[in-house]
């Protein structure tokens, strides 16, 4: 992974001359996972920024909070917000720009290329360390991860600990940035949707038993929705009362609001929630894998969105997160869209 020393200088400069409100990046976490999101306002704090294979979080999510905060302030500070992005994160910004949720001028992008490798998979690493927490993770020059724990160092081939999404990553360098560190190493994964084969090869009944067993675990803590940079609706289908209630929302509007999903974490309700979320991410999910990483019950949610990403590519030739001028997947069509399933 590229180094961020020049980016730090850049960060110090923009903070000092005030062109940027604050910068979202990664610093040292204290809960056992080396990296954690931090927010730096002062130039002298720029040294707190780190960059290593444990910078797994998608920080673009915090641009949503920033927009909400500005909406609540009477005279909001219109300066852009700085943000460190990997390849996948940058594509999330492209989708937010595509949907006009943020303006290009709202964000100052410090791009870091993943070059040969990518980030570690938290679940794989935790399994390898038998639950123990890593102190540091680095990538050595033979493309191996060196993991330091309190009881010494462990080495593993990058492929063994690399996050699934990095192995299938179409472009591991930022597609949009103000400043960039590291070269753009074009990598064409041999099987871009390889991880799906495990499920697609199952029979219908086996697939059902798999997904039922997984989604029955769901406790509806909504971490997948909270971590997702694309899930920015003010009012979600699963919320018990509408969140966008204002003083002039009439009683009838509130009373007639349809409760599509019950609050109970029952299998039927979990399915409606996860299927609707997957559909709402069709053509918008940039496969940053956060939904799967944050899930406390390890439900493989990424496979739901990756499947629709594959369909969007194969059925409609639609790529996500590369071109901010493209219309959304389901608000455009081609004459040659397949219709064999219509009878």
């Amino acid at each position: 992974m590229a180094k961020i020393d020049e980016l730090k200088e850049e960060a110090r400069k923009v903070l000092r001359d005030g062109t940027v409100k604050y910068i979202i990046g990664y610093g040292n976490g204290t809960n056992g996972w080396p990296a954690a999101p931090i927010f730096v306002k002062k130039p002298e704090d720029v040294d707190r920024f780190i960059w290593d294979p444990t910078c797994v979080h998608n920080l673009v999510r915090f641009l949503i909070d920033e927009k909400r905060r500005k909406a609540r302030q009477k005279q909001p500070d219109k300066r852009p917000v700085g943000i460190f992005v990997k390849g996948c994160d940058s594509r999330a910004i492209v989708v937010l720009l595509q949907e006009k949720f943020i303006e290009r001028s709202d964000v100052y992008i410090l791009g870091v290329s993943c070059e040969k490798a990518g980030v570690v998979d938290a679940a794989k690493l935790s399994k390898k360390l038998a639950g123990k927490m890593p102190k540091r993770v680095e990538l050595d020059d033979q493309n191996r991860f060196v993991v330091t724990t309190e009881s010494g160092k462990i080495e593993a081939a990058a492929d063994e600990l690399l996050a699934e999404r990095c192995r299938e990553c179409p472009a591991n360098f930022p597609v949009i940035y103000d400043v960039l560190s590291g070269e753009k190493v074009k990598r064409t994964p041999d099987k871009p949707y390889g991880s799906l084969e495990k499920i697609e090869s199952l029979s219908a009944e086996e697939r059902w038993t798999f997904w039922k067993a997984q989604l029955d675990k769901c406790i509806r803590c909504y971490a997948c929705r909270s971590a997702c940079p694309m899930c920015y609706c003010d009012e979600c289908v699963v919320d018990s009362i509408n969140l966008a209630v204002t003083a002039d929302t009439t009683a009838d509007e509130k009373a007639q609001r349809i409760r599509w999903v019950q609050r109970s974490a029952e299998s039927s309700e979990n399915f409606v929630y996860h299927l609707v979320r997957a559909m709402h991410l069709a053509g918008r999910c940039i496969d940053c894998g956060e939904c799967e990483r944050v899930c406390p019950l390890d439900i493989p949610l990424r496979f739901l969105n990756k499947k629709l990403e594959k369909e969007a590519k194969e059925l409609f030739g639609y790529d996500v997160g590369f071109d901010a001028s493209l219309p959304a997947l389901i608000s455009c069509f081609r004459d040659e869209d397949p219709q064999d399933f219509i009878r």
Partner: protein
Amino acid sequence: MAEEFEPRIVAFLCKWCSSAGADLAGVSRMEYPPNIVPIQVMCSGSVSPLYIFSAFNKGADGVLVSGCHPGDCHYIKGNYYARRRLNLVNKLLEYVGLEPQRFRMSWVSAAEGTKYTQVIKDFVKDLKPLGPQTKLRRNA
């Protein structure tokens, strides 16, 4: 005679053609199974995936979305959007393991009363062997 399973189908019928096709079938006294619960929508493009998942959640054994043939859409593009969106819904339902026959999309114009009855007959014929839909159904 054992109580034969009668599937209950929720059908989203586009007002301008499929629903008119259904009326034509009715006016021409065509026989077709009474299993569908018709819901008239302004356009097949307005059928949200949430309606489909919610229908299965509330116990529908089959869901049909029927719209106008490409080019006939009263709103020009509605059925093209529906074609793309409901194709994704179909793939997703199949992917999680719902029996593929349970979700069906069709083009039925206002003049195709016979085709409408045929679509319903085929759909009921497909659903009968599957028995009641218990996978996505809410069992309160």
